[in-house]
């Protein structure tokens, strides 16, 4: 939170400093003369930047919701594997259920904290591999439980997929070039708006607050 507040203060301070330099370098009447031109430039740059900003925000929000849905599906897949394993008449059923319990405990207890540092625990992947081995053995000699064993493999396939997606979502971020566009675009938009000449500050201030649109 403190970092974010400091970044906002730094940005606003930078804008104020630039505005101060512009007002020192040029007189208000000279800037007022070019208000029409400045207005057109700010309108074009501002609109373009607003579209880029809106699409980026929409994109990252969509990815965030996908991450939430993926987490729910992964948890659901583990519970399904556990429940299917309770139906199996197989010596591997108990180790599968134990692994499911260990997997969710490991994910909540350790992995979630590690993901804040862009890391995943190796135990999670090892447990998935072990589950595949046990499920494969169960399917190989599961004549009366053939359907349950097949469903177990399907849920395990989903679990593996959701885990890989979670790892990818934790690792992947917006590319640097897009950040460059967003930051440079923001600087240009703010800088362009500094070149307006205001005839009467109090009048403009009141107008801005009375009709911001």
């Amino acid at each position, binding site marked *: *939170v403190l970092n974010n507040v400091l970044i906002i203060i730094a940005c606003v301070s930078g804008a104020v400093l630039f505005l101060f330099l512009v007002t020192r370098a040029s007189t208000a009447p000279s800037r007022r003369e070019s208000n029409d031109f400045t207005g057109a430039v700010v309108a074009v740059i501002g609109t373009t930047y607003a579209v880029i900003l809106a699409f980026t925000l929409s994109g990252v929000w969509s990815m965030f919701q996908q991450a*939430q849905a993926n987490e729910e599906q992964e948890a659901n897949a583990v519970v399904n594997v556990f429940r299917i394993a309770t139906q199996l008449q197989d010596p591997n059923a108990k180790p599968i259920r*134990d692994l499911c319990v260990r997997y969710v405990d490991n994910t909540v207890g350790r992995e979630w904290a590690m993901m804040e540092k862009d890391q995943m625990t190796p135990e999670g992947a090892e447990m998935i591999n072990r589950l595949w081995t046990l499920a494969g053995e169960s399917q190989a000699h599961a004549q009366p439980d053939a359907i349950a064993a097949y469903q177990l493999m399907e849920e395990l396939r989903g679990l593996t997929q959701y885990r890989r997606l979670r790892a990818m979502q934790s690792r992947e971020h917006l590319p640097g070039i897009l950040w460059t566009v967003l*930051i440079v675009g923001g600087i240009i*938009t703010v800088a362009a708006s500094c070149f307006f000449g205001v005839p009467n500050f109090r009048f403009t201030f009141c107008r801005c607050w009375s009709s911001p649109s």
Partner: protein
Amino acid sequence: LQVLVLTFLIALVLIAIADIDRPYQGLVKVEPEGFLFAVRTLHSQPNP
């Protein structure tokens, strides 16, 4: 004032994008709600 509000708004949106872009880190993050539910479910199931 216009410049200050514009800068504040743009900085705020960029910070929001940076935070949401990392779904498992920062202020706005995915909570393990599903897994917590799974923990409760699995620990309440009989495991003979």
